[in-house]
């Protein structure tokens, strides 16, 4: 915790210490569906050791499943974000059965349990006491009704639900908290890098630095609109010479990634200035280096849960051109910490604007970094989870004094 002194807000650190005292020795279990790839695993990798240092008995369990299970849950993911998918009764049944098998092998006994996203949501049927919270990281503002109806049968059995932004929350029978995700400023993805570290990574990845670099870091997923980014880059390149880097990793629970990657490669085929990097999981330092050397960073998502890549980039003192969707709008104050865009044309315009105004880029980047410090560091998110737990144990009171 002392490593965060001078980085995280003092008040957050003080409150964490106080929660550590109040909740000392109590157990806090997190469950999700992948230990590698994607934002949730990334957060948990950092959060669990911090919770332990506070004196909380924190654990992280991962459910397993067959290929069919992950196909079904990917369809859930798409359907919850508005895409039409076909479902059948046996798919719901399979989802439940896989969770039932997992419940038999997992230790679900804890004072507080946080279940992440739809994959493990039926585990609540097997709870053994303690406070149970369902944490949804995806955009639930316009879900396919059939899927939400199915999942909400489980969700409403939790003590509370947690969403990333208010627009994702649904009208549920339980308390719904809004907790934005966060980054760890000390992780390899976000810590300061030396010039040597940056140069080594960029050279190894084969990225030229002789011209401005446009970057988007994300999974190869249609909701991240990589083809739209290529279009915006091509439009901007008519006015400003630059290179484009699309960098992403595969998540073990995303079967569509390879299809989208191939689409992107096909689209970019004849342009030597478009670099497509499929990075292995945990390429944190490489992503860190790319974000630091880039001139312009995009996150042109069409739908987005929260968009941690935006937070990471802002922490490096760079303004982001973000799709005006989901949690991106919570992070980017248009014209102050970045730009919000709703089209390829909008993205191309802002790329040109940032390429041509380095002073403005620097000023917005500084604003962006301070905004992340105050609102989106790991210490704040842990503070919020512990606050929810503490509030659940003091239910009915809307003002608590420690």
């Amino acid at each position, binding site marked *: 915790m002392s490593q965060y002194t001078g980085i995280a807000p003092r*008040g957050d650190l003080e409150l964490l210490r106080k929660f550590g005292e109040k909740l000392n020795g109590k157990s806090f279990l997190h469950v999700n569906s992948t230990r590698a790839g994607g934002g949730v695993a990334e957060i948990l990798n950092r959060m669990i050791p911090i919770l332990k240092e506070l004196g909380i008995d924190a654990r992280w369990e991962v459910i397993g499943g067959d290929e069919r299970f992950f196909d079904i849950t990917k369809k859930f993911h798409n359907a919850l974000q508005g895409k039409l998918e076909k479902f059948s009764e046996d798919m719901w049944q399979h989802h439940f059965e896989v969770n039932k098998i997992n419940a038999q092998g997992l230790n679900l006994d804890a004072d507080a349990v946080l279940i992440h996203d739809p994959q493990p949501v039926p585990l609540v049927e097997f709870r053994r006491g303690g406070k149970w919270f369902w944490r949804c990281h995806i955009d639930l503002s316009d879900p396919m009704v059939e899927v939400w109806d199915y999942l909400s049968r489980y969700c409403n059995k939790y003590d509370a639900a947690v969403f990333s932004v*208010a627009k994702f*929350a649904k009208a549920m029978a339980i308390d719904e908290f809004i907790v934005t995700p966060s980054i760890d400023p000390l992780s390899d993805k976000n810590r300061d890098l030396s010039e040597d570290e940056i140069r080594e990574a960029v050279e190894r990845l084969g990225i030229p630095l002789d011209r401005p670099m446009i970057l988007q870091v994300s999974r190869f997923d249609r909701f991240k609109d990589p083809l739209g980014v290529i279009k915006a880059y091509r439009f901007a390149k008519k006015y400003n010479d630059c290179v484009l880097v699309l960098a992403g990793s595969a998540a073990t629970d995303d079967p569509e990634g390879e299809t989208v990657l191939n689409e992107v490669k096909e689209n970019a085929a004849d342009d030597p200035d478009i670099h497509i990097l499929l990075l292995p999981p945990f390429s944190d330092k490489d992503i860190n280096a790319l974000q630091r050397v880039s001139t312009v960073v995009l996150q042109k998502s069409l739908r987005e849960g929260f968009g941690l890549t935006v937070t990471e980039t802002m922490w490096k003192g760079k303004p982001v051109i973000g799709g005006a969707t989901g949690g991106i709008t919570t992070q980017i104050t248009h014209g102050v910490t970045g730009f919000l865009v709703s089209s390829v044309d909008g993205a191309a315009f802002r790329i040109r604007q940032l390429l041509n105004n380095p002073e403005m880029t620097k000023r917005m980047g500084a604003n962006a970094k301070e905004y992340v410090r105050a609102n989106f560091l790991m210490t704040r998110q842990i503070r919020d989870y512990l606050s929810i737990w503490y509030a659940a144990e003091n239910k009915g009171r809307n003002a608590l004094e420690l």
Partner: protein
Amino acid sequence: MATESFVFKQCINLIKSTGRKAKQLRELYAGIEQASDDSIYHHTYQYFLKGHLLEYTNDFAHWAGESLEERVLSEHLSALDPYEFADIAGLRKKLLEVIDDYLESFPEPREVTPGNEFYFNETITIVFPVGIKARNLAEFLIAVRYIDSGSLYYHFYEARSRLGSGRDDFSKWFEEKWVDDASKKELGEKIKGIDPFMHTIEEIREHVVSAVEEVVRKDMGIIPL
């Protein structure tokens, strides 16, 4: 009895969704009518903790201006001072009056684009001491420079609801600790006079530091160059 040391506290707000939203003005009206007192409090008094730009003074005005693009309405809503009202009921009534008046002139409100609805939230507030105490003005000056904005918000903004009469915790401490000292009374008045709507929390910090520093220098007998 006057508090001897100033104990710095801070508050954080845990946001809770109410599940209610509005996509146009009539729905906003209905939402304000039916929202809990906690929700109205959050969208008005707690606006400044979020670190917004100073174009607006509450979430309703912000949404009217940015999402609905009803600039005139946003100006009317921004003109409301929640600290002028004795209770939430009075503030709620005034909000509804302002919207009602506007709807009389523009009875067919348009809808916002999907995703830009107004979401009615509430909060659970957690207050905690930050581990800093000031026994005198010099220590107070050092502390105010370094406390988080959340602590400034608690003592300058939240105190106004807690103490009433436009008082903040800083002014109260100056007046109570140095009962017979005119310079401290004047300092208290100066702090109380800082317009809470016209500055960011960091600007308020600068104003408080500047005002306190002036008095500390006088107390130390420092002659300005």
